[in-house]
């Protein structure tokens, strides 16, 4: 087949379609978003009309995929690393129920936090749930492993996690695809109580999961994706996980690393391979993207055994993504001093686009805050989080999706008044509604600004589950319609917006103030898409 230039995420999307999925379920999140977008634009996916709409959040996505798996079909779920926190409940429990149709969860980690609140390492979730984890080291492996992962999921009866870091997700390389497989037929689980986790069942299924662990280790040992590479120089043995292998080999351009190397891309870790490495070598170096998971496993707690170096002992940096230079240093190579960045250089942080409605909202809110003082604006995640930076300096918090409303509530409970929550439309439907319900039930004194730009802007303008529904949702949850206020964030409406905010501060109870104007980038994107459609 013909070689295609694909991003890591695109390779995964293509592989999922080729492996015969009947649905992709996802909520956007950098760097995972383009997997679903790729499938949405894929021809085969369109012809087969497989499920490819966005879900409200990662938990609803994973649960729906589990339902599709229950019905015997293959499903793919995609999210960014923190999305798995939201979906952790179903993730931990589905490891115990197991699956019926093959189910693969792609989790995109973001070491160095290019676009995230943290750099948590999803492999820990995989280990925690005791399910197989694949961690490809390049785009072709991302394709091949995803393609295989569905069959592997069905063979082991477990969900499989594909773990990728930003660098693989958003890097392009040539990929050779495989033949497209048929979709699975509808097929109920053989045991109709397989997904019943009443404690009496749950205990039994958990024991089954424990009993499978030895077999999973054996499969890892034999996996074509884990390799032992011989080396003559036994003073050091190197363990590389996923893309860390590339950074090692970049230091040996002819492909000849003198040290024995174990390359791990399939977990649980291949024990015998690691044992052989430890037997043969004086010391070990572990290079892994993310937290020191394997290093911690191999490190000798009492310090009497083989010395293990890596992120924990400072041979490699403790946080942030790795690169070839880090490996060179850990291998004791002398690096030449590179050219320096001139001192005149200044940073260029991201900022709100010209014409963005969030600017008008913050200008108005800032005028009100000038009277009542700083430190009262709880916010959330989206383009509007840039309101934390100059020239706005409006918002004070951004923790996890939905936390603006609930943290504002807690602060109000503590007696802080007035308090604001600033939340985007997509974040609101992702995780804000339940918090609003808490507020309504307790008549909390909160002013919730929903900055509705009618899209999921931060991640590139996907469809928002909130579109056209926000007032109705708020009313349905029980907010007094008199205190559901609407404005259009435009400069000319500045005075009106300020007035509305002031009126709602004066009210002791739940106020929802909705600022609605479509994101200017989304408007441009839709124009472009419509033009392409017309031409087609």
């Amino acid at each position, binding site marked *: 087949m013909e070689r295609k230039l694909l991003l890591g995420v695109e390779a995964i999307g293509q592989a999922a379609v080729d492996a015969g999925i009947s649905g992709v379920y996802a909520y956007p999140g950098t760097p995972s978003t383009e997997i679903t977008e790729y499938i949405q634009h894929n021809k085969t996916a369109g012809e087969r009309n497989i499920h490819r709409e966005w879900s409200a959040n990662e938990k609803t996505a994973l649960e729906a995929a589990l339902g599709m798996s229950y019905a015997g079909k293959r499903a793919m779920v995609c999210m960014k690393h923190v999305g798995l926190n939201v979906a952790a409940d179903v993730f931990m429990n589905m490891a115990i129920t197991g699956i019926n149709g093959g189910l693969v969860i792609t989790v995109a980690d973001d070491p160095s936090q290019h676009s995230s609140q943290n750099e948590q390492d999803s492999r820990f979730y995989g280990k925690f749930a005791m399910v197989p984890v694949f961690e490809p080291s390049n785009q072709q492996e991302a394709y091949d492993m995803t393609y295989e992962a569905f069959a592997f999921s069905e063979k082991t009866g477990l969900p499989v996690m594909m773990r990728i870091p930003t660098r693989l997700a958003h890097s*392009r390389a040539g990929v050779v695809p495989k033949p497209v497989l048929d979709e699975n037929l509808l097929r109920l689980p053989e045991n109709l109580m397989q997904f019943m986790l009443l404690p009496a069942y749950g205990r039994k299924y958990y024991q089954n999961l424990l009993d499978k662990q030895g077999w999973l280790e054996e499969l890892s040992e034999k996996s074509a994706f884990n390799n032992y590479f011989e080396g003559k120089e036994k003073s050091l043995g190197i363990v590389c996980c996923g893309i860390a292998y590339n950074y090692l080999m970049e230091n040996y351009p002819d492909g000849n690393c003198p040290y024995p190397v174990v390359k791990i891309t399939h977990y649980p870790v291949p024990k015998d391979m690691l044992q052989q490495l430890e037997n043969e070598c004086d010391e070990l170096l572990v290079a892994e993207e993310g937290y020191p998971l394997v290093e911690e496993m191999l490190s000798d707690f009492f310090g009497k055994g083989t010395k293990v170096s890596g992120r924990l002992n400072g041979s490699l940096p403790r946080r942030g993504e790795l690169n070839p230079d880090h490996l060179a240093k850990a291998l004791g190579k002398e690096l030449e001093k590179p*050219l320096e960045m001139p001192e005149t250089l200044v940073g260029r942080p991201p900022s709100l686009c010209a014409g963005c409605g969030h600017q008008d909202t913050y200008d108005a809110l800032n005028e009100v805050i000038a009277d009542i003082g700083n430190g009262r604006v709880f916010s959330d995640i989206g383009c509007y989080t840039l309101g934390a930076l100059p020239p706005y300096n409006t918002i004070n918090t951004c923790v996890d999706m939905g936390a603006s409303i609930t943290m504002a509530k807690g602060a109000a409970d503590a007696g802080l008044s007035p308090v604001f929550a600033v939340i985007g439309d997509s974040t609101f439907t992702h995780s804000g509604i339940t918090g609003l319900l808490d507020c309504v039930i307790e008549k909390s004194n909160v002013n919730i600004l929903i900055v509705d730009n009618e899209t999921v802007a931060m991640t590139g303008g996907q469809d928002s589950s909130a579109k056209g529904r926000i007032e109705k949702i708020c009313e349905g949850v029980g907010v007094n319609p008199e205190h559901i206020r609407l404005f259009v964030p435009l400069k000319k409406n500045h005075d009106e917006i300020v007035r509305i905010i002031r009126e709602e501060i004066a009210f002791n109870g739940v106020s929802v103030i909705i600022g609605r104007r479509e994101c200017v980038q989304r408007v441009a994107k839709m124009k472009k898409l419509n033009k392409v459609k017309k031409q087609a």
Partner: protein
Amino acid sequence: MKTDIILAGVGGQGILSIAASLGAAALNENYYLKQAETHGMSQRGGAVVSHLRIADHPIYSDLIPTGSADLILSVEPMEALRYLPYLSPEGSLVTNTAEFKNIPNYPELNKTFEELAHKISIIRIDADQMARDKGNPKASNMVMLGAASPFIAIHDDIIIKGIETIFREKGEKIVNQNVEAFKAGRAFALQK
């Protein structure tokens, strides 16, 4: 053969069409290619960079090691300087001179460039102006690619084929404007 290129600019300036043209060219030639992009947060007017690696042998790392890039190709002058540590001492820097000022403290850069010119080979070109002269301001990127092309180990005819491939669906006029922009940039660099 290998060419390691740091592509730099500001989010929204579209350095990715430069990468795509070279990608298409590399694919035509059956070369290996890796191209790491910036997506997400920094696309909102922040600094963006792409590591583009082309070789006739397999490439391991998606990232270019420091001190080893053959070329920094920047569509914005300040961004050209941000990635200097990646440049090999024998490498070249090709940059647009049109400044993108979306920050309040944009520095004066002329002196910095003059000092730098003693250490490395630099080509500075007003690509925006040249693209306007060629009738399509949007083709400034292709002027830049043209100006950088003498430093890239792919024949210019092949790069032009790459440009034709990625602009094909936009029609013949757009293709020609972009190819002309490329040629103008290339001619400028070859005169230097």
